């Protein structure tokens, strides 16, 4: 047994600190690169290396993309913008709020007013120094009659007032202890006051946009001196839009991109067999849903809703569509990755007997259940519907699957058909998810879940900063949805990225894939 082996074992077991390990390895004459490789395997974060060029194969881009941050809807533009701009706050990998251009956010006791300090000493790419006016202008871009994608979540903001050159006060219509999560919306980025020329972006981010062809590619180059420690390490990055799933995977396998995302599950084996790639899997809030409108027959009968919930064979569905890259849903929208996930609710299992019992109790007829399905909702929606039809038939429930055209699905079917296939992207805060889809007044309440007690709980949860109380309220809301709600939520899908082993700093994130769309900011390349 030589000393080097022993030292490696010691560091892996955590008996030796990182610093101590490096010192002793050097004393043994081990090369630094080998020693840091061992550290990486032992779970120690390596120090990022500066420089290098990262090639990202990215989906969700279109020729119709615009650089106006208010129009963003998909991954490509979000990843570009997080390289050029900074937000007010950042959500970390554990779904906790971290300061960004807001250094601190302090709520008043009733959480209706927030005093926020703007970080000092930050400069825009045009040389201007960041101050409160820039922040106010940037928030107001999404307020009022704005066409911004963030206009909905920002509506409760009553006013943004300048207190000082580096301090603003945000006043709310109603208390919200989760305001920082609202501000973490990917549309909310900081630009200089009166900025309007979107095609020539000016931001505080670490990169500048060298070249941009909508729906084709973007080239970003480091502008140096970024304020966040350990971030923006790359010399340059190239984002190539590859929307076709198979083409994106082939580009990775052929070595033409270093990182890609939305990995196609059937290709996982092939990627693993190639040997030089690492998958990055993250549990998150993206989920499939089959909303039943609680005020439309036959779904206005709680027994019908329960019967259908018991008719879904979630285990088989997960296994069939995504293998180990998805988790069963429990008929409420809060994912395991959320700190407020109610983990004491029993998992809803496939139970044809219970399903038959509730269906009979409700007197469900053979032609009553019509499921409007389309793969426009998500890839595999038709497969899921057909499987659901079969497992429901085993319980004596007849489901008619009506295939809807993909084109115009969201305009013509969503929020119109009483029972359909759909999805929700996760929200950073549990209260946001519950507010956007389950509050009585929410325009996107696709289950027509209008329950006063629920609204009251939601308002209370938003109004209190007491963690224990918040947990009680949010857990109770999940229980209500699980037992009575109109949401049949079969599964939560994990984000699945992949990178070449030389790419570091690309780690799982509970919000979005590609490090919560900050891949160019966070990734670095091992020398």
């Amino acid at each position: 047994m030589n000393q080097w082996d022993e030292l490696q074992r010691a560091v892996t077991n955590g008996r030796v600190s990182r610093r101590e390990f490096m010192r002793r390895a050097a004393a043994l004459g081990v090369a630094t690169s080998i020693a840091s490789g061992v550290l990486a395997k032992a779970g120690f974060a390596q120090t990022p290396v500066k420089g290098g060029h990262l090639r990202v194969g990215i989906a969700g881009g279109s020729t119709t993309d615009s650089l106006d941050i208010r129009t963003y809807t998909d991954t490509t533009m979000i990843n570009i913008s997080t390289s050029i701009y900074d937000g007010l706050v950042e959500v970390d990998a554990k779904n906790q709020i971290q300061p960004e251009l807001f250094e601190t956010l302090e709520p008043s006791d009733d959480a209706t007013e927030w005093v926020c300090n703007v970080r000092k000493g930050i400069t825009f790419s045009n040389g201007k120094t960041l101050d409160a006016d820039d922040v106010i202008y940037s928030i107001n871009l999404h307020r009022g009659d704005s066409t911004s994608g963030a206009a909905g979540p920002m509506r409760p903001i009553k006013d943004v007032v300048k207190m000082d050159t580096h301090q603003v006060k945000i006043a709310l219509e109603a208390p919200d202890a989760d305001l920082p999560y609202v501000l973490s919306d990917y549309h909310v980025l900081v630009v200089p006051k009166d900025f309007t020329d979107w095609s020539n972006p000016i931001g505080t981010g670490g990169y500048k946009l060298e070249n941009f062809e909508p729906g084709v590619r973007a080239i970003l180059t480091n502008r140096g001196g970024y304020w966040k420690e350990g971030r923006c390490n790359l010399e340059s990055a190239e984002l190539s839009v590859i929307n076709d799933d198979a083409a994106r995977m082939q580009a990775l396998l052929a070595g033409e991109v270093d990182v890609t995302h939305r990995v196609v599950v059937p290709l996982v084996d092939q990627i693993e067999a190639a040997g030089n790639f690492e998958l990055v899997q993250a549990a998150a809030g993206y989920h499939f849903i089959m909303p039943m409108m609680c005020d439309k027959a036959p779904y206005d009968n709680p027994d019908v809703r329960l019967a259908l919930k018991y008719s879904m064979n979630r285990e088989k569905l997960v296994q069939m569509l995504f293998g180990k890259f998805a988790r069963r849903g429990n008929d409420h929208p809060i994912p395991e990755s959320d700190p407020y996930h109610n983990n004491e609710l029993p998992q809803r299992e496939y139970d044809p007997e219970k399903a038959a019992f509730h269906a009979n109790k409700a007197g469900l007829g053979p032609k009553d259940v019509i499921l409007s399905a389309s793969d426009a909702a998500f890839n595999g929606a038709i497969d899921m519907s057909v499987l659901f039809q079969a497992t429901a038939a085993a319980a004596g429930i007849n489901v008619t699957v009506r295939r809807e055209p993909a084109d115009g699905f969201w305009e013509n079917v969503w929020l119109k058909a009483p029972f359909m296939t759909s999805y929700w992207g996760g929200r950073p805060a549990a209260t946001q998810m519950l507010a956007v889809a389950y509050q009585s007044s929410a325009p996107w309440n696709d289950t027509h879940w209008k329950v006063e007690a629920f609204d009251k709980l939601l308002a209370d949860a938003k109004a209190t900063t007491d963690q224990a109380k918040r947990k009680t309220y949010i857990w109770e809301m999940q229980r209500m949805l699980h037992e009575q709600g109109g949401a049949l939520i079969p599964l939560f899908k994990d984000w699945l990225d992949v990178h070449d082993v030389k790419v570091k700093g690309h780690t799982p994130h509970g919000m979005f894939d590609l490090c919560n769309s900050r891949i160019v900011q966070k990734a670095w390349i091992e020398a």
Partner: protein
Amino acid sequence: MLKLLGQRLVLGILTLILVSALIFAVTEWLPGDIATNILGQQATPENVAAIRAELGLDRPPYERYVEWLRGAVDGDFGTSLANKRPVADVIGPRLWNTLFLAAYAALIAVPLSVFLGILAAIYRNSIYDRLVNISTLAAISMPEFFIGYILILFLAVQFRWFPAIATFKPEQTFTQHLYATFLPMLTLVLVVIAHMMRMTRTSVLTVMASPYIEMALLKGLSKARIVVRHALPNAMAPIINVIALNLAYLIVGVVVVEAVFTYNGLGRLMVDAVSKRDVPVVQACGLIFAVVFIGLNLIADVLSILSNPRLRHPR
């Protein structure tokens, strides 16, 4: 003959006008209102009305059609609704990409298929004839995306000879362009070659059955000379027509190949534009495709008239 050519030209233009009206009408009827689509969640009735007025959608369709057509003739297709850039700027580079790939594939596929077809006619029913027939038919029977994936699997992923994504980069040299687009070109060649090859073979063989060929044979001319000098000129008309059809396909019908190889051509632009209801871009793409299709057919007509002495010198 001039009268004949003139007729064709006038017919071509009439067809084009008809098609342009059709394109305009169909995009009018596309489900989903443009104004609500632009506004999304913010689609209050007042906002919708304002946007409709801004885009001129409140005016009668025929007025807008005439205006659009007049602009299109001048090369002005309006402004993209999605990113507010002039449509001509959006389409320009894409059109060039599409034409580049089509020309690349055509320059290889057309001579190759005519050559293979003539050889097949000369060595009719030989092993060679059977082989070339079977292999080209096999290639055409597979969907183009499947051929594309097979080529990627072997030539890009296994052997790494060619890139799997054929993205055009301005900093590339011409040779690098050719290299980058090799796989989509090969896919297209495999897709179009059978049609042209078999048409060449068939039409040459049809002519070969006529008495004057028998005469040439009796004169003791070699088979190759008979085919190339005596049969081929008379067999040209149907070959030209098939070539024109395939050239048109190479420009207007390759959206699937573009998707497989992430090639940024006009087809993908149009699909993007349709899904975002970016109507000016859709209309412009549709019109360009129509011009290409009608134009190539017109050229084919003219060439087959020119290649036919009876039409060239009518009595």
